[in-house]
């Protein structure tokens, strides 16, 4: 084509366009055109997968998503399920599909359906299910892909001691996150709040995780102390229901909420923690007095709350140090005692008078306590071991796990067995197995420790990390075996020979009751110098006295209490392991409920520390 200024163009060439009259049109009107494979049409949501976390609502640029409560859907905070599902306002939606890319479960997607015409504005606000806006089951368009996921599903690794350096001592295994790892771990949180609802004490985990991410450790500690006076303890040994419920955990590794709490506490010195913990303490004394029996997590939590509300609280502890099972049950490699002491020091600073070596009993009768104090709380836990009662368990070298753990904590010298067998598959069984294994390695340099559990490997009651770490430390874990009898070394030898076990076929009967069935043909003998039973604990309530025991209502060997921990006897409350179990955080939650109830009973109205926030 010539472009000299003289070129004036052609009148004929444009007429070639007439040839288009005989061509197919590019677009054919009225023929429905299928959308492309990853088209961004109307939303679809798989209600089976969706947990109602509401992350889609948070990321939405246009506030087009609302979470709608749907009655009848599973409502299970412990499993991280909320009975609500996202509804989309197509007057606002811009089809950016960030909701799809961030959805923790992968339930949300955009379909290939793109036509909706209606004069009714309400039809543009829909609650998508897997069938789509018109129930036409259009295929998925834009859906989650692995390479485009907006969530970080991998957890920051926790630095910890290797098996060689931890096998012969009781130093804490976990080192804790450094600042950078903690911020990275906290940054994974999507603030859905599932953890808050799953936690028995309803800890404000989203808030303190956000504060850690922002580097504001003081605010994190403040959020932690709103609901938990045992953060150092729970930052180490909590059973972390929150992490089970965590939405990120649906496809990836849940946020390490427990380690983040540990990190926040480690970041502040004890003095600063104490100041923050005591914020909001009522200075005026109410003149009322409360006695708490037992200084475990339930008792001390209630004591802390009541002291902050202005009551005079005295805690009576039978053992030489406060802490209950946290001290005398949990081994030091999981929970160093100085950290437990730090938590208890805060509680003491709130004005709680903890009297150790003060068992309730003949010298300090229950009646006197009930006369001297306006309210009494029982929180004595499960201090007694239970026996399998198989033949031979009356032998002196058959020990109870709690008694042994208690002795180890007290520093009493125990005869470390050269070979030992632990019966039980829970955390306590692993605590004693690993503690004794450490002592074995310390004294003889070698570990000979066998743990027999009824449950199969996949259904162990103990935490997964306990099983893994115990094996690393040389503990032999045998699954699916039950004890048959304790045998002697020889016909005339009275020393312990070992434990005979049989294969366990099933643990529960049809009605779900504990009733193990064994295969008597599959017998194994585990030679041992000591057999330790760790199959559960019982509470020892002899200190109550006959009259009170008679007056209280009991249910299956435990004191029956209302939702607020009040017993059937006026002025008497009970909480913690002795009524429900099974862990520290449940005890803390129960302690709060009891404190609230006692406060109301003492005329303090319904005002509680938490409600006053």
């Amino acid at each position, binding site marked *: *084509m010539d*472009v000299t*200024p003289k*070129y*004036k*163009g*052609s*009148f004929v*060439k*444009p007429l*070639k*366009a007439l040839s*288009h009259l005989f061509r197919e*049109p*590019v*677009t054919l009107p009225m023929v429905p055109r299928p*959308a*492309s*494979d*990853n*088209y*961004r049409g109307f939303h679809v949501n798989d209600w089976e997968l969706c947990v109602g976390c509401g*992350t889609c609502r*948070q*990321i939405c*640029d*246009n506030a087009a998503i609302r979470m709608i409560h749907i009655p009848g859907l599973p409502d299970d905070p412990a499993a991280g399920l909320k009975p609500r599902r996202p509804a989309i306002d197509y007057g606002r939606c*811009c*089809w*950016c*599909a*960030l909701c799809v*890319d*961030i959805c923790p479960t992968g339930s949300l997607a*955009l379909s290939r359906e793109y036509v909706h015409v209606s004069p009714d504005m309400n039809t543009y606000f829909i609650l998508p299910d897997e069938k789509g806006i018109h129930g036409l089951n259009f295929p998925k*368009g*834009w859906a989650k*892909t692995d*390479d*485009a996921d*907006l*969530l*970080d599903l991998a957890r920051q690794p926790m630095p910890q001691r290797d098996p060689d350096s931890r096998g012969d001592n009781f130093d804490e295994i976990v080192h804790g996150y450094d600042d950078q790892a903690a911020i990275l771990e*906290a*940054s*994974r*949180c*999507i*603030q859905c709040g599932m953890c808050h609802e799953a936690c028995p004490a309803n800890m404000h985990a989203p808030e303190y995780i*956000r504060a850690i*991410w922002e580097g504001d450790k003081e605010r994190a500690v403040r959020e932690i102390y709103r609901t938990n006076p045992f953060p150092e303890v729970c930052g180490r040994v909590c059973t972390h229901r929150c992490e089970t419920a965590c939405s990120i955990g649906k496809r990836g590794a849940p946020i390490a909420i427990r380690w983040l709490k540990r990190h926040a506490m480690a970041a502040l010195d004890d003095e600063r923690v104490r100041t923050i913990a005591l914020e909001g303490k009522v200075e005026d004394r109410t003149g009322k007095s409360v006695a708490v029996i037992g200084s475990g997590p339930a008792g001390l939590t209630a004591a802390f709350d009541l002291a902050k509300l202005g009551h005079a609280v005295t805690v009576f502890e039978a053992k030489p140090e406060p802490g209950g099972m946290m001290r005398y049950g949990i081994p030091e490699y999981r929970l160093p005692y100085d950290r437990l002491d730090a938590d208890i020091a805060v509680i003491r600073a709130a004005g709680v008078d903890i009297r150790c070596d003060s068992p309730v009993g003949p010298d300090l009768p229950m009646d006197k306590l009930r006369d001297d104090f306006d309210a009494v709380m029982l929180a004595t836990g499960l201090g007694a071991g239970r026996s399998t009662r198989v033949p031979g368990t009356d032998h002196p070298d058959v020990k109870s796990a709690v008694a042994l753990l208690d002795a180890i904590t007290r520093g009493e010298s125990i005869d470390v067995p050269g070979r030992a067998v632990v019966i039980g598959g829970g955390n306590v069984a692993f605590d004693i197995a690993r503690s004794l294994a450490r002592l074995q390695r310390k004294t003889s340099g070698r570990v000979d420790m066998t743990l027999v559990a009824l449950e199969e490997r996949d259904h162990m009651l103990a935490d997964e990390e306990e099983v893994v770490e115990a094996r690393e430390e040389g503990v032999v874990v045998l699954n699916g075996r039950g004890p048959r009898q304790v045998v002697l070394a020889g016909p005339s030898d009275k020393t312990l020979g070992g434990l005979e076990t049989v294969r366990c076929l099933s643990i529960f009967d049809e009605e779900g009751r504990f009733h193990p069935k064994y295969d008597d043909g599959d017998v194994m003998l585990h030679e041992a110098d000591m057999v330790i039973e760790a199959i559960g604990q019982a509470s020892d309530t002899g200190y109550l006295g006959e009259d009170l025991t008679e007056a209280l209502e009991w249910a299956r060997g435990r004191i029956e209490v209302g939702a607020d921990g009040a017993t059937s006897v006026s002025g008497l409350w009970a909480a913690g392991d002795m009524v429900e179990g099974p862990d520290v955080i449940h005890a803390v939650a129960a302690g709060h409920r009891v404190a609230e109830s006692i406060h109301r009973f003492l005329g303090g109205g319904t005002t509680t520390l938490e409600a006053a926030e």
Partner: protein
Amino acid sequence: MRPENYSPVQHPPSHEYELYFGPNHPGIEGNYAIRVRLNGDVIQEAIADGGYLHRGFEKLMEQRLWIQNIALVPRICVPDPVPMEEAYARAVEALGGLEVPERAQWIRVMMLEISRICSHLFTFGGNAATIGLYTNMFWGISMRDLFLDLFEEITGARIYHMYITPGGVRRDLPEGVLDRLEATLDEMERRTPEFEDLFFDNAVVIKRARGTGVISLRDALAWGVTGPNLRGSGLPSDVRRDDPYLVYPDLEFDIPTEVEGDALARMRVRKAEVVQSIRILRQVIERLRGIEGPIRCPLPNPLAWNIPAGEAYTRVESSKGEVGFFAVSDGGPKPYRVHVRGPSQMHAVQVLERVLKGGRLEDVAQIMFSLDACPPEVDR
């Protein structure tokens, strides 16, 4: 902009009259008005009157998380949204120190060039329509549709792709899409002679467009003209060359220029650019076939994503000229400030007001379209 434009009513001399041109008219890809004072049909004065598409993008961006803005930025230019996504993403990458994987860089170049072709096809059609040639418009739009099909396939959306994200792109390419792109490019090349016949060789077009809306190179530089409009006045300036980004240094392409600076020259530059874009795309297709790997660098959780404090200016050569994003972060989860330098701001305000002066009423729309301004870029 609007309130200041309303000056007290001044009655023009009796032989002059004022005409409100817009906001809906064929001269531009959106709502935009000009007030022209005429003597007969000769323009004495033109005053740009924008604001009809003001949606407050810049301010809105301060209210949204860094990631959320990827849904907002393409809306700043409807016909050519990809450069907006690219400029914003690169600003965030510069602030956050993100490294874009190689495959994503090539995909981004592919998107940018397809978008350029789409936008130029749109302009062909529109420009012809301003002088009464509607066939051209149908052709341009129908050809563009074939490229939009590719966009739909790659990004799931035809117009607002929201596809380029800080750190890369949001999805990998679907199976076989490169083959289909190649086929579409073949079709485009097959159609090019028809566009020549219908438009560039058309005696009516040449008669109307030659010598209309002339911008001299000196004026163009003084008024901040960029892109095809500047190249139509003779300066081979192009951000892809002058300040290369992504993988443009690895690509062979020419920078077409014309010297006349009139409406015809600007359209001829665009036509030549489409040819260059096809050339680039063929190289990209070749390279993309051999590059595997991630399409995005790892990003933090978008709900907990603070960008380090700082400021960044990034620019991209769009079909309209130099698109620039100036982003400031105060270290928080949202931008502290984002300024958008839309090239159309210069073309539709200061350039248009000056070029129209002395022109004729029937050329207003044509001059506007030959400048290829995009009103939302003006209003932001």
